[in-house]
Each structure stands twice: as structure tokens, then as C-alpha cells.
């Protein structure tokens, strides 16, 4: 399934400065795997050493949090948009 992964600003430096990446995948896990294979440096920002998705990074398919779907096994449809949403704290200075 052709899907688009939106890369948040703080992580773009590890994804060749791209705002989004188009790829082909059947599940969220496959999409993220393909992404981190393409951009090795992105891996440690998304995954812990044990291979789990870091909990300060959330992944959405369209507008739903994958934790409330089937997590990385969530099946993808053609044209789905995967958003990576890390926590940001800027506001004061």
C-alpha cells in the first residue's frame, strides 16, 4: 500500500531533511521498518535498544493513535498518512 510518513521537524535532520517520505508497506511496523532502514540514524530516535517504539514518540495512522488500533500491526490502506508526533516543549525561551 502506498502510504506517506510525515516526519516532524525535530527528526527531519535524521531523514535527509525531508518533510515526508513516501513508501510502500502493509502495516505500520513495516512502514517504520522501511523508514529506519532507509534512514539509519532515525532508528535510535524512534526505537529503544530493545526495539520498542519510544514512548515520547507517538505514531498515528490518519488521526488515530496506533496504541488504540493494533499498534505496529495496524494494517494500512492505500493513501494512509502516518504521522510521527514527538513531544516538544518549547514555549518560553
Amino acid at each position, binding site marked *: 500500500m502506498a502510504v506517506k510518513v510525515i516526519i516532524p*521537524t*525535530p527528526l527531519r535532520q535524521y531523514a535527509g531533511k525531508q518533510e515526508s517520505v513516501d513508501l510502500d508497506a502493509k502495516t505500520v511496523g513495516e512502514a517504520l521498518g522501511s523508514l529506519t532502514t532507509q534512514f539509519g540514524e532515525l532508528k535510535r530516535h524512534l526505537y529503544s535498544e530493545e526495539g520498542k517504539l519510544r*514512548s515520547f514518540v507517538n505514531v498515528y495512522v490518519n*488521526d488515530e*493513535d496506533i496504541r488504540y488500533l493494533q499498534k505496529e500491526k495496524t494494517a494500512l490502506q492505500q493513501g494512509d498518512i502516518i*504521522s510521527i508526533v514527538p513531544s516538544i516543549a*518549547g*514555549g*518560553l525561551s
Partner: protein
Amino acid sequence: MATQVEQATRAAGLSKEEVLRYSRHLIMPEVGMEGQLKLKKAKVLLIGSGGLGAPLGLYLAAAGVGRMGLVDFDTVDFTNLQRQVTFGTSDVGRKKLEAAKERLSNLNPEIRIDTYETRLSSENALEIIREYDIVADGTDNFPTRYLVNDACVLTGKPNVYGSIFRFEGQASIFGYPAGPCYRCLYPEPPPPGLVPSCAEGGVLGVLPGIMGCIQAMETLKLILGNGQPLIGRLLLFDALRMRFRELRLHKNPDCPMCGEHRTIHKLIDYAEFCGIRGEEKETAVSSEIPEITPKELKARLDRGDDLFILDVREPHEYQICNLHGHLIPLGDLPKRVSELDSSREIVAHCRSGKRSADAVQFLSKAGFRKVWNLKGGILAWSDEVDPSVPKY
């Protein structure tokens, strides 16, 4: 002699001046007298008087929120003026709270403004927050974000959240009993150093302006009971594409803070939670990193010593000012280390000395024996050696 209308208005709780001041609210059926009185009775606490706090404070004061609390411990810095629009050039050096209170009181003398010149902490948060109905979080660091969240959940106050990074913003409302809290969204903070602050990452000043205004709007909606507030909704703003997106936020049934079987019942040590204590230990280790002061560097260069100056900043920083060093941005250093000659003496520098300390640590581990960190970076060089070098 007061007319019947005047008597009725005064009895309703608004003076003639207030009626005139808020006339544009009063003529809206969605607000009216009833709404304006809700605003007058409302008590909102603003945590942080900076990029987000500026528009928040200005618009809530303008709208007639009857009581506002401001929490900030900082002084106005010259670099704040690019985005913290409550302040003017003449305020540089003043306490932020003093300058903010003056500005907001001038805008609307009808409201009560209380200031808390302190760093919000586990010791004082509950006591301060308890006096207010709504909290608006305009802070800039993870420990405080989690502290504010937890304190709001514990006191049952909604937390109108806004945050920014470069050209992106997030907004939501956390802490509503039936809705999610910040920990439902992000159970854990990122390790320190992963997400830069504005001083490191930069921001276009108007971005916190936009997000702060959105926070002000949501606060007013909560007070008035109008519209659909951002409860259970994460608003994402992309300034470059000028697009808003929305993601659904679920209340996590297993949330340790607000879930059914919560395990957190009091405020914790947030610096520890965010790994900052660990970072303090790391900094102690990095003070063992070989350093050279700007004056020492100047002396050695004047003597004709053959030193290789390595600049680990970004290309756009090099354009602002530089020491004619060889530019390898820190992120590229692992890939480009072959450009460096380990037989030469290398002085690494960045803006303030932090990134270059990382560079020296990296190079030492890679076997370089003659590397030094320029203490204080190019900022210190400007202060101590050559004031013609602009600071940024």
C-alpha cells in the same frame, strides 16, 4: 440619578466603563452580559511569561478575565524581544513579572493580577494552582510540563497546553477529568538533549504568538462554555505549509496519573524523571574535557602556533560570524572525521561551548589525543578577545 438601565447593569456586576470596554463581547449573543460576568469571575494561572505567555496574557487581559496569576522567575533578555511581545526594549533587564504586570494592567486596569516570582516546583505548585480555575502552560522544558500536568490532575484543574518547535506547534487541553492528561499522550519525556530549546533550535517569533493566541481562545471557550474545546484533541500546526491537522487523543485507561488505577498520588522529582539529574552527572564528567580559553587561544595563535580550528556549528551560523575555522557540523562529524588530521592540535568550537564539548568527547574516543574545547565558544571569544564578533 442612576437610570433603571444603569442600576440594572451595576446590579448585574459590570460598571458603565466595563460595559463600554467589553461592548464588542456584549453584543454577541454567544457572550453577552452573562458571558462577560463569567470572564470577570474567572481565575486563570499563566505559567511562563515568554513566547506563549505574551499573547496569552495580553488577550486574556483584554477579554476581561477577572483574575490572572503569572508565574515566572526570569528577567527580560534582549533576545526575548523577537517574540515576547509583552515587553519593550526599555524593559530589558527588568523582572519579567514586573514588566508584564505593568503592561497588562495598562491594557486593562479592571482585572486583578497576582505575580509569583518563583520557579514552579513540587513544593509550591499545588498551593499556587489551587487558587485558580484554569491553568495555561507556556513553559519551555519537559520537567515543568510534567509538573504542571500532574499538579492540574491532582487539583482537578484543566491545563490549556501549547508548545512549539521551529515552525510547528501543538495545542490541546489536558487534565479535564473525563479527558486525557499529558501523560496519556506522552508517558515518558525524551532524554535530555534530544529536543533542542529555542536558544538552540530557534523559532520564528510569531509562531508562539499564534499558539499562545490559540491557548487564549481555548481558555476563553472553557470559561464561557462555548464551542468545542480541544479536549481529547491534539491540534498540530505547520506554519510553513500553513496547515492545521488534528489527531485524536485518548484518555489512557492505564495512565499512572489519571487512569482508573493511578499509581501517582503526589508530585515527584521531575528533573529526575526527565533524566536531568543524570545529565548533571554527565556534565561533571565533561568538565574533564580538555579546554582552552579564548584568551589562551588568541595568545597561541599570535605566537604562530599551528592550530587547526574546527567549527562544529551549522552553515547558517558560520555566516553570522566565524573564526575562519574548518566547518564540520556536529551531526556530520562521525561521517567526516577523515577530514581531520589527528597529528595536529585541534581546537573545536561552537556557539557557547556545549556542542564542541561533545565533539571533543567524540574525537577523544576516536583516538584523537590533541583536541581542546574552546571554553564558552564564539560567544566567549566575542566577550573576551574580539568584541567586533557579533553575538547571537
